[in-house]
């Protein structure tokens, strides 16, 4: 059996998940900040304005989980919170419509706004964005005569997020641009209407956090998984090699020119235990995961790029510690 490198692992066996025999868990070692900084590494794998994949290596699961939880529920974003309905003759009920509007992600950068104080009746230019949605469905007089398609027969039969208009309050127009505060996409369907149906609404967006309502969460998903590892314990070739290949996600197992199987890249393996279904190859592989190698996937909803969201999340934890420390120091 090939000697495995020194890394904390969990083994995925046929009927159980087993910890490495000499591994007493990371809970056993003493805390040492210097040692932590020495071991801790970050590798960015993929990054653009909406999606990001990065690795946190050599970190405690408690920290990784804290960062994930913070991104989901404590990093703020702007969302529509109040809807004043002046007229709604469409078939969607007022409350359902208001809920739909709340879920539309806004591009407004939450770092440029403040939280609205709890007892404030009126919003200010620093904590509120105001929008309106006024639209009416009519018969289309100029459409082709012989068509029965809704888009030819009616005007405004589908209401999209592009119809939401921003109304700057106070000095907002000089600080923000309409394109930077409105909905992230123009083609989010809000409602469908027929001639005579009409919407006239005033929308108020405020800053909030995901703990209060999921619509305030700045991420579509933020998750982590442990790095998978596949080790071959003996040579596998011929039909067994192709069978082995089919047991893993595409690209995990490669075949060389002699038809011998080798592990190409286990990173994107789904960690299914399909190999254990076949007696002829179940002895040929060790499946494991590296216990301190976290692969993060962060998908932004559109207001902030994912790398900014992660930094904001860590900053929130840091500031939490700071305020708590200040409080402890002040009363003792």
């Amino acid at each position, binding site marked *: 059996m090939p000697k495995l490198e020194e890394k904390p692992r969990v083994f995925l066996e046929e009927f159980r998940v087993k910890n490495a025999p000499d591994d007493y868990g990371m809970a056993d070692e003493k805390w040492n900040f210097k040692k932590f900084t020495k071991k801790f590494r970050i590798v960015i794998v993929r990054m653009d304005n909406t999606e990001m994949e990065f690795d946190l290596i050599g970190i405690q699961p408690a920290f990784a989980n804290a960062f994930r939880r913070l991104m989901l529920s404590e990093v703020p974003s702007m969302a529509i919170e109040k809807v004043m309905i002046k007229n709604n003759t469409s078939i969607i009920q007022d409350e359902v419509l208001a809920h739909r509007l709340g879920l539309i992600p806004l591009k407004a950068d939450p770092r440029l706004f403040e939280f609205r104080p709890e007892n404030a009746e009126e919003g200010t230019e620093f904590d509120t964005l105001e929008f309106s949605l006024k639209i009416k469905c009519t018969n289309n007089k100029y459409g082709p005569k012989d068509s029965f398609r809704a888009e030819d027969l009616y005007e405004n039969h589908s209401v999209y997020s592009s119809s939401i208009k921003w109304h700057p309050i106070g000095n907002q127009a000089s600080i923000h641009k309409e394109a930077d505060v409105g909905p992230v996409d123009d083609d989010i369907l809000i409602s469908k209407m027929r001639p005579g149906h009409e919407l006239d609404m005033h929308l108020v967006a405020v800053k909030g956090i995901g703990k209060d309502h999921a619509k305030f969460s700045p991420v579509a998903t933020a998750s982590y998984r442990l790095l998978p590892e596949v080790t071959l314990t003996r040579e596998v070739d011929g039909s067994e090699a192709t069978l082995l290949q089919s047991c893993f996600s595409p690209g995990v197992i490669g075949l060389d020119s002699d038809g011998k199987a080798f592990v190409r890249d286990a990173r994107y393996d789904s960690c299914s235990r399909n190999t254990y279904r076949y007696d002829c190859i179940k002895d040929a592989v060790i499946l494991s995961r590296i216990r301190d190698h976290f692969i993060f996937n962060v998908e932004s909803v559109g207001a902030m790029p994912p*790398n900014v969201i992660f930094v904001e999340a860590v900053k929130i934890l840091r500031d939490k510690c700071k305020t708590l420390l200040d409080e402890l120091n002040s009363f003792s």
Partner: protein
Amino acid sequence: MMKISELPGDEDAGLTCRTYVFQNESHTLGNALKCIIDRYEDVQFCGYTVPHPAEAKMHFRIQTHETPTLDILKRGLTDLQKVCEHTIDLFEKEVKEFTKP
């Protein structure tokens, strides 16, 4: 409102055991802080609980051999803050490196 208070009952037991109550905190801070404090030399026991899901409270228990728990708590928070600062610095460095043409 104060964010931290002490749970009554440990007053006569010296300074080496306390349960602190954190308002508006939960597993996010609790587990991360526990993970650090649990690894300190003098700490006998450290654990946290969110007693009821409908109450935004987190109970944090520390028992030590000699060191006052308040010192331990402060040290834990300082260390967690240092971890955060290090993570931010390292992450921003890597992002800069990644976006460099």
